[in-house]
């Protein structure tokens, strides 16, 4: 049984076709990135998966249920986080939101407590439990939203722009948590994002949607191969260093301040950031490093261009 299954799914709004003959399925335990330009049809698809919107035609099943006819059944097995919209109770302490959601999902007292405790601990939300939701920082609120969506232990977690606006550290913590959640509970993940980092850390499969149509469906490596997107390792060195133009499977993009900072492009398929770093630090003292991810807009643009040619 697939967790998500769509066949020739179509959704029209007045004159425009938001989703156009979309066919794909997601198996239990998969983690799927769903990307595309704004207005490409991502939100519309999610709304059809969760029973908010009625498809114009075609077939959709979520957790083997018809979302329109069995919306409540779907809601029991799916957790959804709408990035820009809160599902928490803004005027009450965070703790209350969890208690209310537990009641909404008819969790038993013991079950509710243990699940809340686990989520709060893993997401490090303990200190915020007594804080009214409206006073939480964006990062804290996002973690709370995700905990709220996972409280009823859904089979499928749908995240709409979960990391938008977050600082690097908050993003990092969120991704680590989601990886752990998948590992421990086998939760299926479907996420839309504008952040290539999200896709790289969290997804083993990518769907690219363009004007409501599926432009790409495949692995992340396949995506990279298609668009040839490269990551860039920026290395700060302790001393001025000659150009590092001989590191295997990398390409030197540039060198600044007499070689104190050098930028090396590499292909995720060919090597890893760790391998590149190891090779550099074997020869020179490395002070600091950052990784620049390929811009997702850029990736999407290239996919669109590629599918346009096809």
């Amino acid at each position, binding site marked *: 049984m697939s967790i998500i299954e769509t066949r020739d799914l179509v959704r029209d709004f007045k004159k425009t076709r938001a989703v156009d003959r979309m066919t794909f399925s997601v198996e239990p335990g998969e983690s799927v990135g769903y990307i595309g330009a704004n207005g490409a049809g991502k939100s519309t698809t999610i709304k059809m998966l969760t029973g908010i919107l009625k498809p114009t035609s075609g077939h959709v099943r979520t957790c083997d249920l018809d979302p329109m006819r069995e*919306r409540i059944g779907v809601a029991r097995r799916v957790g959804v986080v709408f990035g820009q919209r809160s599902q928490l*109770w803004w005027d009450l302490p965070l703790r209350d939101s969890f208690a209310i959601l537990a009641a909404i999902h008819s969790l038993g007292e013991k079950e509710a407590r243990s699940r809340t405790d686990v989520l709060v601990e893993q997401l490090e939300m303990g200190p915020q439990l007594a804080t009214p939701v409206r006073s939480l920082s964006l990062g804290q609120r996002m973690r709370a939203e995700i905990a709220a969506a996972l409280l009823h232990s859904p089979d499928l977690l749908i995240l709409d722009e979960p990391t938008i606006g977050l600082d690097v550290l908050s993003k990092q913590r969120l991704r680590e948590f989601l990886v752990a959640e998948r590992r421990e509970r086998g939760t299926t993940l479907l996420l839309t994002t504008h952040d290539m980092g999200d896709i790289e850390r969290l997804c083993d499969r990518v769907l690219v949607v363009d004007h409501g149509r599926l432009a790409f469906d495949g692995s992340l490596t396949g995506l990279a191969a298609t668009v040839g997107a490269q990551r860039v390792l920026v290395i700060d060195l302790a001393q001025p260093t000659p150009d590092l133009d001989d590191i295997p499977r990398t390409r030197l993009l540039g060198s600044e301040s007499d070689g104190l900072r050098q930028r090396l492009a590499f292909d995720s398929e060919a090597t890893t950031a760790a391998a590149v770093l190891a090779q550099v630090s074997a020869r020179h003292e490395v002070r600091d490093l950052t990784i620049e991810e390929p811009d997702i807009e850029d990736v999407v643009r290239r996919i669109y261009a590629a599918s346009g040619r096809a």
Partner: protein
Amino acid sequence: MADARVPLSQRLRPYRVLLASRARAQMQYRASFVTDILGTVGVGLAEFAEVWVIFHNVELLGGLDFKAALLVFALSNLAFSLADMFVGHLDQLPVYIRAGQVDAFYVRPLPLLAQLMTSELSMRRIGRLSVAVVALVVALTTGAVAWSPATVVLIVLTVVSGTAIFAALFTAAGGLQFFLVDGSEFTNSFTYGGQYAAQQSQQVFPGPLRIFWTFVVPTAFVAYVPAVAILDLPGDSLAPPWLAWCTPLAALLAWGIAGLCWRLGTRHYQGAGG
């Protein structure tokens, strides 16, 4: 859907928790809560002043003297403030839609309408409610009530059905607002307008209007029709004393229409995408 073996109290628990949380939220700001309650007391008093000023000028209005009119005022205000307290926010639907709250309701395993109803509890309406209760007590103790067990039953039935009628009007308003959005004020004409009409002797209305408030938007049943029976008045062809016992039927009719409006509204939302 709902498992019949699960006891009712268990099935109602989510709503109890939701309502309790709303009550808690309002208690947090004690000062503004008290201000708001005083505000609704003021609204109730202003409504009463309107009735009182008219009777300062005339002995009878629409066949009722002041004490009888007070009973009609009290019954309609009681029912309206109860309905307003529990489901008055339903006519704020466009606000919920814009905040994304409706979509959040869709991804929770409870019926949409039940979630919307329990998403707010306007405790400040207690102010207006208490004005209505005082008016009711005064009207019943000083008025020429034909007391009997049947009268008591009728009064209770009236308050319950009257509240149900106004709740149905708010629900219908919510359903229609899925279509109206920018024109949501339109529904005020039969929610707040219905309340305004309900607190009058129906005899003040010309024929067509009276038929409208009796059979289309049945707010005549909220107060005037029962009051005729409670005070043992002769009534007239559109409000014979026995009609008072049909108040629950009027509530059912109102809920039939409300249910229809709500269904159409949600279908429209899912069809058009809000």
